[in-house]
């Protein structure tokens, strides 16, 4: 049996969870942004480096990097979707149950709560 959490505990758990999830999203976004903008900046400043041939083949670093960014984007969305659908949603529904049991849910829905957190920005 799960013990019923107090209002403060339930709220704290909710905010902790939300800020963890937001951070997770921001880090993943940064990975994509960094990969992409280093690519864009190299196009602007260092086109020669992107023109390096890889070994004896005619494929250049730029082409490999470009295709990798496409693959990274797909894998990144995949990782997030998997994590969110498998773990985050489950955790969240538990936390929301706690909020409901402790009686904090109503006030959170209405938004009259002193413990306000901005989002990632």
């Amino acid at each position: 049996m799960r013990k019923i959490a107090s209002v403060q505990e339930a709220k704290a758990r909710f905010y902790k969870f939300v800020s963890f999830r937001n951070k997770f999203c921001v880090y993943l976004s940064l990975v994509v942004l960094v990969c992409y903008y280093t690519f864009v900046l190299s196009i602007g400043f260092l086109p020669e480096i992107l023109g390096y041939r890889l070994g004896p083949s005619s494929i250049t670093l730029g082409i490999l990097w470009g295709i990798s960014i496409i693959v990274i984007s797909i894998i990144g969305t995949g990782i997030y979707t998997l994590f969110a659908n498998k773990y985050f949603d489950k955790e969240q529904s538990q936390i929301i149950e706690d909020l409901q049991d402790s009686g904090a849910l109503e006030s959170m829905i209405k938004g009259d709560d002193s413990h306000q957190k901005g989002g990632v920005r």
Partner: protein
Amino acid sequence: MKKLAIFGLFSILGVCNLASAAGLDTAGFAQGERNYFAIGMFIVFVAVTLGITYFSSKVSKTSQGFYTAGGNITGLQNGIAISGDYMSAASFLGIVGLIYANGFDGLIYSIGFLVGWPIVVFLIAEKFRNLGKYTFADIIAYRLDSKKVRTISAISGLAVVIFYLIAQMVGAGGLIQVLFGLPYTYAIIIVGILMICYVTFGGMHATTWVQIIKACLLLGGATVMVIMILYMSGFDLHRYFEMAISNHAKGEAIMKPGTFLPDPVSAISLGLALMFGTAGLPHILMRFFTVKNAKEARKSVFYATGLIGYFYILTFIIGFGAIAFLLGNPEFVGEDGKSLIPPNMEAVVLSKVLGGDVFLGFISAVAFATILAVVAGLTISGAGAISHDLYVNVCKDGKCDPQVEMRVTKIASIGIGILAILLGLAFQGQNVAFTVGLAFAIAASVNFPIILLCIYWKNLTTNGVLYGGIIGLVTVLTLVILSPSVWVSVLGFESAIFPYNHPAIFSMPLTFIAIWVISRSDSSARAKKDKEGFAAQDFRAQSGIGISEAVAH
């Protein structure tokens, strides 16, 4: 509805008659000889999609059904439909053409078009689904003053839709003229009428299925093309790239960044517009309301990203394939070594070389279907902005008889269709290459900052959105008009006042700053209310409690 079916039939017959009457007077290469397989394929596509429209009309009787297909589309279906909305004829024919001309530089566009998607799923998609109902303005209006913020959101949304439509319509007219031997004017009218039928009678349900069918056809066609290209180069990538390098006038330069983006400012600016523009396109964002919850919204972006990424890899291979197999073929190269293929027709010509007239017909029909699907998606989001945002929520204070709302929606869809036809005719033969870039620049510099700040920034106020949005929109339009692509190429002046074609690097930060400064210095009573509303909005955005439900039908 019967009338619609009969009308549809007539318009199909009309296509045949016109096609046979059009004769050989179109410019270009072999398309003068009509491809009956292409026309047949296209008629089948139109018949099937009009059939779907007929069945969808039952779902689309209410506004909920009309705008969101009842919220019952699955993640996978929506993912395919999003990819269908996003993979326009411009990205297929245009990127292949770009690679054919410049090699590596074409890849810069494909990557930019794709990298917006991870950002959409990480930061926007599920919050969007949790907060919104029909249009992206619903999210902005959640805690802010509905009238003011909906007005600016609807205007900037409509601007994106209209500029995007111009590019699609002019492209469609030109393409159909070349592919089917049909006069430009008729081509534009047929596209316009078909898109009006899909949207007005079938709403989001029909539009979604048109997108799904089109996405499958396009991905299937491109996959077959790539397999043939790889087969012809003996599944040896080295040999394939070597062939391309030896054929192309630029030689090894096609394997690295070239002159397409002349300076770092242009490169970054284009990158910003493509990446964040994706997260601000109203017709794409609207698709998140067709699924039942945040989980399905996430899944749809994952499938969409996978399919779109796969598609761009295919276009890359097709582009280099076109260099390898078309530039090496004396049939397509003039005596001066220049390509004889009309611009953007490389993929279509390559399909003929690879698979003969039947495959050429297939790819032509797919290209046409692609345009139809994209314009239908644009039309429904434009109709949403006019009817749901401007009419119901701004003019009628959100209180409107559902039947009147549906009537306004349908009139708006027809109106946008007619406007698209008129724009297509007005811009015939003009250089409209800048319009897609402009649509993306507006989406990135106006819609995206507003949406992002609205979801995550507590201190955003109504005035910040309204005036910040206006500043952003005016800046983008001014900079684009003064840029070389309009000031010189369209208006014919000698040199541009603003040196860069892509304004996002200036306009996007400016909008963020403007919204921030105005919101911060806003001490009105409304501003206080806006800030107080954040906690409740954030809780719903994060938890999904209270989201607009799917309806059974």
